[in-house]
Every structure is written in structure tokens, then in C-alpha cells.
């Protein structure tokens, strides 16, 4: 099968072009020497199947960034029949540089001028024939977003592949020192083929930026936009999650339970409370992941992400992060899982890992349920909102403290040099494809891990099987007694410690677990809790719940995205330690002050 490598700078619409060319058939593949995920797809072009591989966006073939190393390694290790170089037609003055560098490799090449509609709107005139003459490679103009010119691109690929060249690997060393010569060649080609009017900037973008990046209005508008997005995800996502839960419950009671009713009770419980609930945990995340990625697609593809970086970078750079990290941190307040997946936009690994360290501190909607319950059960009506607010504050403080501590160990090697693209609105198809692909990725990567964790907690809380589940006599109860010396100084008794063990799976189950542990119905749980704990204990418990591991899904995604068990261990271990220290300081401090 012939192989085509898709290359281009970031923000050229390369992924959109890839999606147009391949439909939704793309999958993640493994390649020699490469550890990051690369999308590839087999498509029928002409009379044969062709494998198209989407390489990461690179600025320079000789650059030092991780993505650039990946692209180099791929070209060196894998034979390629054709290099498909995607450029942004509005920025040929710098984008042709990459095409010229790649041409030095001596492999067959096809040059795609994408976003040709934008170029025309700006009055940029491109002489395709002059480009063909100067570069000696075929050139096709397209708008991948709207689908113009894709037929021409396909036939050009077929034609280029038809000319018999054996596929070969690239040899990169020999072209390493020739960048200066390329610079003058670039000026020449650009001069011959492209005419740019004097004011070729997007007027509408300039006008919008005058408001959105306003010295005084910019930040309030940013927070307002985030708040609105959040509201939208919440308003749309909550009913969807409830719907999934309802369907699952119906399947459980109407189909699974009757089917296994005659079985051994231990096996029944294993299937219902272990396996089935584990799958349910994975499924319950899907609506929120799709929704978040629809909105992340809007924030990123519209160009607003770079604007957020402009507004927040002054503050975040002091923490070793950048403005985009703040956007992801805010997204984490809805759900940590998609926020962690969203950090893929960061090219520097250190920056990305540091951002992944702080996201789990974001007070997500699952933790909010626990806090709303506790604050209303324990605190008076006027104090409850303040208590809740203080927890949001603690969430930010824990994140910023963590960034300050770990910024040296996870250094951000790359300078912030971000493009500020004109505002664009992604098409529904683009957003949907993104959401769908992320969900598929999450299901594939995280299911096994989550299932294993849920079954483990089930085993701890259900064995030995002749005592009530989650009671002090179960393994979980014994574990809690074992840890009593650790949790007693925090004011957390051993029954609540069992609830914390449940909370490791998902914060959604903490309240349900407490009802089981205390043998209470959902309605009288508040009374029992407020009777057993005073406000100092409750607040200490909430601080611990806020800071320690958010849920198994988060852990699974930390592993999925970092591909490092060591980092995953750190990102789970440090918050546990921090949670203990914060709760200890609070509880002992408050008691010492006489509360």
C-alpha cells in the first residue's frame, strides 16, 4: 500500500484537510520510534488503497520541539511515497519555508494551499503556475473547511502517486545547515508568486479584538465567556448524564437482575455492583466529554484560546504555566477528564505535565454535589454559600501552590510564541468529529483501568460476604481501622474513611456510600451526618475530598495522556499528601483555637 505523510505548520487547517480526505475512518496507530499518538487512515484513491498519516504540526523540520522530533523520526524511520504539505494560503510568506525545507529531502511532494477562500477575501493573489515553475512540484488550492477543491486535491494525489517512485525513508542530516540559503529562495518564490495588498488584515477580527482584548474589559469578558460556556455545558450535560444513568438503571433492574437472579449471591453482587457499575462509571462520562469537546473545539478553533493566553499570561507565566493552562484549569471545574485531554494543544511536554498536575484540583461538578450536601446539612443558611466559596478559593490556591512547587521539576522549555489567528467559526461537522473521536479514545484507553479499580473497591467493601457491605467488618472497614491513626488527626472517623475509599472511584458515589455505611436512606442522611460531625470535622473532610484524587477516570486519563506511570504516581501521590497536610493544619488549628 502506498503511504502519504501529511505535513504542515500549526494553524494551517491540516487536521480539517485530513478529516475531509479520510472521513471518520481515522484511527490511532503505532509507529517505530514514536511514542505520541498519530492519526492515520486508509482511503481508496484511484484504483488502490492509500494510507494517509497525519503528522503533528511543525514550524521547522530542524526545530527542537517535541512535535518536530516526532515528525523527523517518522520520516527517517518510515518509507513514504508522497509528502503532502498543507499551507495556510494567507501566510505563504512564512509557510513556504517548511515546504522548501521538505523539498530538500528529495521525496515527491504535493503542495496544498489551504484556506484559499480567506486569502481571496483578503485580496491576496497567488499565481499557482509561478509556484509550480519555481518549486517544481504540483500545487492545489483548497478550502478544507468548506470542501472546495478537494476533488482536485484527490486527483493530484493519485497522479503524484502514479509516477513510479519507490517509497523511501528520508535522510535528514545532510540538509541541516542549509536554512540560510532557503531564506533567500523563500523571498524569491514569494515575490514571484504572491501579491499581498498593503492592509491584508481581517478587519472584523481587528474590531472584535479591540473589545475582547481591551485593557479593562478584556478580563471581565473572558470570565463572562467562561461562565457562560460552563453554564451551557452544565445545563445541557446534567440532563444527558441523568438520561444515561436512567437507562443504565433500567437495564440493570429489568434485564441484568432477572437474568442472573438464580446465581450465587456473591457472583450476582460482583456482576451488578462491580462490573456493571464499572461500565456505568465509564458511560456516565461520555455525554460530558462530548459536550466539553464541542466547546473546546469552539474556543480553540475560533482563535479565542490565544486571546485567553494574551489576557492571562502575565499571571500564569509567574507560575511556570501559560495563559492556555488557565483556560484548561477553568474547564476542569466542569469535569477534570476532558480538561486533561484538552492539554494536548500544548506542545511543550513540561508545560503540559505541569498543567495536568493542577487540573485535578479544580472543584468539578461531582465534588460540588458532596459539598452542597455537607454545607447545607452542617452550616446555617447564611454561612453555607460562604463555605462553598471558600472551597472554590482553596481549589485555586492548591493548584497555584502545586504549580509553584513543581515548576522547576516540570520546566517549560518552550517560549510562548503563539499565533493569533483571525476569528473563525468551526463547522458543526468539525466539532462533532472532534467530540466523537475524543469519546472513542477515552472508552478505548480508560475502560479497562476504571473497571479494574471499581472491581477492586467492590472486593474491599463486599468481602467477607457474610457481613453488611461497607460495614466496619469488611476488608474496607479493616483497612479504615488500619488507617485510623492517619485520619484521626484530621477529625475523620473510620466510617468516613470508608467513604473516602469509595470517593477514589468517583465523587458521585460518596453520598450513596455514606448512606450505605450509616444504614440510612437518602432523606435522613443529612440528619445523621449533622448529628455525628461538627462543622470543624465536616470542613476538614471537605478539604480532603477537594484536594485528594478526584476519581479513577481522572487517574486513567492522567496515565493515558502522560504515558508515564511515574508521572501518574506523582499526580496521585502529591495531592494525597497535600490533602492530608491541609486537613491536618485546618483541623488541629481550629481545635487549638477552641472551635
Amino acid at each position, binding site marked *: 500500500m502506498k503511504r502519504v505523510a501529511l505535513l504542515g505548520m500549526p494553524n494551517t487547517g491540516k487536521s480539517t484537510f485530513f478529516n475531509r480526505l479520510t472521513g471518520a475512518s481515522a484511527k490511532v496507530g503505532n509507529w517505530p520510534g514514536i511514542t505520541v499518538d498519530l492519526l492515520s487512515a486508509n482511503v481508496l484513491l484511484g484504483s488502490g488503497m492509500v494510507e494517509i498519516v497525519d503528522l503533528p504540526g511543525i514550524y521547522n523540520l530542524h526545530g527542537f520541539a517535541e512535535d518536530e522530533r516526532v515528525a523527523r523520526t517518522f520520516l527517517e524511520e518510515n518509507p513514504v511515497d508522497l509528502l503532502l504539505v498543507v499551507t495556510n494560503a494567507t501566510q505563504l510568506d512564512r509557510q513556504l519555508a517548511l515546504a522548501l525545507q521538505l523539498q530538500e529531502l528529495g521525496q515527491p511532494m504535493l503542495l496544498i494551499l489551504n484556506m484559499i477562500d480567506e486569502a481571496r477575501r*483578503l485580496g491576496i493573489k497567488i499565481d499557482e503556475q509561478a509556484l509550480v515553475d519555481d518549486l517544481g512540484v504540483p500545487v492545489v488550492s483548497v478550502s478544507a473547511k468548506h470542501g472546495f477543491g478537494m476533488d482536485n486535491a484527490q486527483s493530484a494525489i493519485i497522479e503524484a502517486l502514479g509516477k513510479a517512485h519507490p517509497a523511501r525513508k528520508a535522510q535528514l542530516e545532510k540538509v541541516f545547515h542549509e536554512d540560510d540559503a532557503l531564506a533567500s529562495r523563500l523571498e524569491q518564490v514569494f515575490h514571484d508568486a504572491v501579491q499581498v495588498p498593503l492592509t491584508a488584515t481581517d478587519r472584523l477580527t481587528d474590531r472584535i479584538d479591540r473589545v475582547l482584548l481591551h485593557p479593562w474589559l478584556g478580563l471581565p469578558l473572558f470570565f463572562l465567556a467562561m461562565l457562560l460556556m460552563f453554564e451551557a455545558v452544565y445545563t445541557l450535560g446534567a440532563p444527558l448524564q441523568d438520561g444515561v444513568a436512567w437507562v443504565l438503571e433500567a437495564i440493570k433492574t429489568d434485564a441484568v437482575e432477572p437474568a442472573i437472579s438464580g446465581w450465587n449471591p456473591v457472583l450476582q453482587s460482583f456482576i451488578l455492583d462491580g462490573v456493571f457499575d464499572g461500565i456505568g462509571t465509564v458511560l456516565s462520562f461520555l455525554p460530558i466529554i462530548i459536550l466539553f469537546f464541542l466547546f473546546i473545539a469552539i474556543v480553540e478553533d475560533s482563535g479565542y484560546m490565544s486571546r485567553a493566553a494574551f489576557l492571562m499570561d*502575565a499571571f500564569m507565566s509567574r507560575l511556570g504555566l501559560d495563559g492556555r493552562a488557565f483556560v484548561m484549569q477553568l474547564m476542569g471545574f466542569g469535569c477534570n477528564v476532558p480538561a486533561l485531554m484538552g492539554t494536548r494543544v500544548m506542545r511543550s511536554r513540561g508545560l503540559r505535565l505541569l498543567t495536568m498536575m493542577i487540573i485535578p484540583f479544580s472543584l468539578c461538578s461531582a465534588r460540588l454535589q458532596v459539598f452542597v450536601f455537607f454545607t447545607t446539612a452542617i452550616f446555617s443558611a447564611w454561612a453555607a454559600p460562604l463555605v462553598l466559596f471558600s472551597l472554590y478559593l482553596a481549589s485555586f490556591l492548591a493548584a497555584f501552590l502545586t504549580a509553584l512547587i513543581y515548576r522547576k521539576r516540570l520546566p517549560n522549555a518552550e517560549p510562548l510564541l503563539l499565533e493569533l489567528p483571525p476569528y473563525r467559526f468551526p463547522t458543526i461537522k468539525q466539532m462533532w468529529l472532534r467530540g466523537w473521536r475524543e469519546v472513542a479514545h477515552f472508552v478505548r484507553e480508560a475502560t479497562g483501568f476504571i473497571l479494574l479499580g471499581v472491581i477492586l473497591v467492590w472486593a474491599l467493601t463486599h468481602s467477607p460476604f457474610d457481613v453488611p457491605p461497607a460495614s466496619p467488618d469488611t476488608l474496607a472497614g479493616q483497612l479504615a481501622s488500619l488507617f485510623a491513626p492517619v485520619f484521626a488527626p484530621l477529625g475523620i472517623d473510620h466510617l468516613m474513611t470508608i467513604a473516602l475509599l469509595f470517593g477514589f472511584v468517583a465523587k458521585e458515589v460518596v453520598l450513596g456510600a455514606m448512606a450505605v455505611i450509616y444504614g440510612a436512606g437518602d432523606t435522613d442522611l443529612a440528619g445523621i451526618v449533622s448529628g455525628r460531625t461538627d462543622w470543624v470535622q465536616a470542613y476538614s473532610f471537605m478539604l480532603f475530598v477537594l484536594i485528594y484524587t478526584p476519581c479513577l477516570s481522572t487517574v486513567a486519563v492522567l496515565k493515558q495522556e502522560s504515558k508515564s506511570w511515574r508521572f501518574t504516581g506523582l499526580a496521585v501521590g502529591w495531592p494525597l499528601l497535600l490533602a492530608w497536610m491541609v486537613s491536618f493544619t485546618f483541623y488541629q488549628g481550629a481545635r487549638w483555637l477552641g472551635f
Partner: protein
Amino acid sequence: MTLADLPTGQTGTIASLAGDPEIRTRIQSLGLRIGRDVAVIRRSRFGGPIQVRIGTTDLLIRPQQAAQVILA
């Protein structure tokens, strides 16, 4: 003068690039090449990034890196 000192709204011509090759390569690939005109569009508050324009590309660059772009 460097790009970091260029007043907002003004244009300068790039004379040379300082700093280590890693950052120089990145700055160049984004279009900040010797001989090209660059304009400062706006600055963010509290010493944050600068929005600059080279040809049809708008970029965010932090003051530390902008200081490595020497203007004629």
C-alpha cells in the same frame, strides 16, 4: 532598540536575532526573519505578552523573547 522597546502602534525592521539557537529557530519559523517589518499592535497589562504583526501573521510574544529581536 529591540522589539520589546518598540512603542505600540509603531513599525520597525528586524536587524538581527539574539539568544540561543533553539529560540532563534522558533522565532524565525514564525516569520520574524531578518529584514522584515514588524509592528506592535497592542500590549497586555502587567507585563504580559505583546501582540505583533509581520505581514499577514499576528503573534503573541513575551517581552523576554521580544527583547531578543533587534531592530534596525
